């Protein structure tokens, strides 16, 4: 499971201090040691010819080398998938597998579209749970019960620590109970997914709240006569909208990628559909995997790009 939110958290931190930090560093690192050497004429630390390189920064050769190796390792399986989809049964090059995507018929396509629709519905319901139930509660805790913050840090680790495969053993009766009340609907799965996403939503939201001084804001709003609902919707939630958006993205990624609970409870989602069509049409499942992967990557990259400038101006 991923902790995308950590990077978001540090983004927020960096945004405050990033600019002046940078300039201070370059002047200290580049100039001062050189001056010292010129005065004393010794070369205890480094030769007078080269600019002193901070020990905790990588040299240009090593940083390029490491990142090249890393991207090679990441790109290899993706290239492997691409190669696989363009390869005909005899070993030649073909685009038939991609063209088959346009032919919207057949059993595997039906399964896939059903799974995709179910997954999208689950995304919507899970997002609604996080937005209406979970995030207001997190805000309320940090405004009114700040002493609970420490305990929350530990409690919110538990959904990661308890593997989904274990949780599903106990979830089956709990969801069956729900199914008795509202009927056997696929959307009940979203109740479980909301729990799976809790730790990721919590770390994102809470790191943003910590930098906000939300208690003062809430007191100010209340002294002007706003009730809790008004304070929440007009003051506090807009202040943390960026971390809300990134936590929504993580939640979407989790729900779209979840397989364990769905498969053990015999529900059809995108992932279980991918598995079942891979038995008949492995090319289609690899193509869909590629598309899902690239869509997520591009979305996150755009998010990271779009977030930067507006963050500095605020």
């Amino acid at each position, binding site marked *: 499971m991923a*902790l995308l939110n950590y990077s978001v958290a540090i983004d927020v931190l960096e945004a405050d201090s990033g600019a002046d930090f940078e300039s201070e560093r370059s002047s200290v690192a580049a100039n001062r040691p050189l001056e010292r050497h010129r005065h004393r004429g010794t070369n205890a630390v480094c030769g007078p010819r080269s600019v002193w390189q901070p020990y905790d920064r990588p040299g240009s050769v090593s940083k390029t080398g490491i990142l090249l190796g*890393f991207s090679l390792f990441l790109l290899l399986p993706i290239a492997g998938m691409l190669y696989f989809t363009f390869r005909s049964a005899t070993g030649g090059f073909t685009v038939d597998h991609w063209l088959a995507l346009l032919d919207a018929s057949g059993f595997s396509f039906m399964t896939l579209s059903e799974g995709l629709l179910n997954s999208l519905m689950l995304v919507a319901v899970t997002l609604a749970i996080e937005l209406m139930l979970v995030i207001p509660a997190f805000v309320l805790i940090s405004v009114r019960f700040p002493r609970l913050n420490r305990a929350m840090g530990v409690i919110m680790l538990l959904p990661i620590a308890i593997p989904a495969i*274990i949780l599903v*053993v106990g979830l089956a009766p709990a969801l069956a109970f729900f199914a008795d009340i509202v009927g056997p609907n696929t959307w009940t799965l979203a109740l479980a997914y909301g729990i799976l996403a809790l730790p990721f939503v919590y770390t994102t939201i809470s790191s943003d709240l910590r930098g906000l001084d939300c208690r003062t804001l809430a007191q100010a709003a209340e002294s002007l006569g706003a009730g809790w609902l008004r304070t929440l919707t007009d003051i506090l939630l807009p202040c943390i909208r960026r971390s809300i958006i990134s936590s929504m993205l993580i939640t979407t990624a989790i729900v779209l990628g979840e397989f364990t609970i769905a498969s053990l409870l015999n529900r059809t989602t995108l992932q279980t559909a991918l598995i079942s069509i891979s038995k008949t049409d492995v090319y289609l499942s690899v193509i869909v995997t590629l598309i899902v992967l690239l869509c*997520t990557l591009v979305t996150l990259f755009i998010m990271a790009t779009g977030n930067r400038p507006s963050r500095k101006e605020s």
Partner: protein
Amino acid sequence: MRQVSNALKLSPFVVYVLLMFALPAALVVVSAFRDGSGGWTLANFNIFHRPGVGAAFGNSLWLSALTAAVGAVLGALVCYALLGYREDGVVHRLVDAASSTLSQFGGVMLAFAFIATLGNQGMVTLFLREVMRIDIYAHGMWLYTPVGLVLPYIFFQMPLMIVTFYPAMARLPRQLSEAVAMLGGGAGHFWRHVGLPMLMPSFMSGFLLLFANAFSAYATAAALISQGSQIAPLQVRAALISETGLGSEGASGALAVGMLAIMAIVVGLYALVERKSSSWLC
């Protein structure tokens, strides 16, 4: 009065977490100690004597430890390389987006990617066999065994380490390396006596998170391993869906308690290390 109304506002969330998380977790633990007729028993734990169960837990342990160690070290190296790039530069954003995506990229899709790359007809396999004349499967097909899980696991462990460890690395005070230089120390001194000791707690908590992550990963193994239940999560599944009538609910509960015991140790260590790391870097 005020506290009461605040607590009321919090109650829907509390009820939700209790109902969908605390209750299922409690049900699992209780089911491990129940026999078929509803009495209390320890007999369910006999499943650990069954052939394959111990081996599966052993496989899970070495697999998690190995991929967490490799993923943590390589991920930390990439974090170090990232320090050399501008925080808002393209390289940085690309690595950020890629590691966020790929650390989520566990599961079924990851298995497909590796079958397409390293499978019998995969790109790398064919390249090695036809161009380099090396048959990586000369000693049998290992991709569909626990050994074959190592590379796919590292593939999502490394990005997860980058996402969790980079903040700690970026927070390392810059003046430290200057201070070491002023005192006449070299890069080796800096890393051995200052940098590594300060980063160690964060590194260890990253490692433990990766360990927990690998230990509970299920989907990749389910899609990749075709025969038998060779790691612990697959054993839980086997017990869950077994129709042999061996009291499967109690058995899966007992296996789950076994996994939970290991995770409890990991979380305990994590909490210890986390307290230490927060005292260093804040």
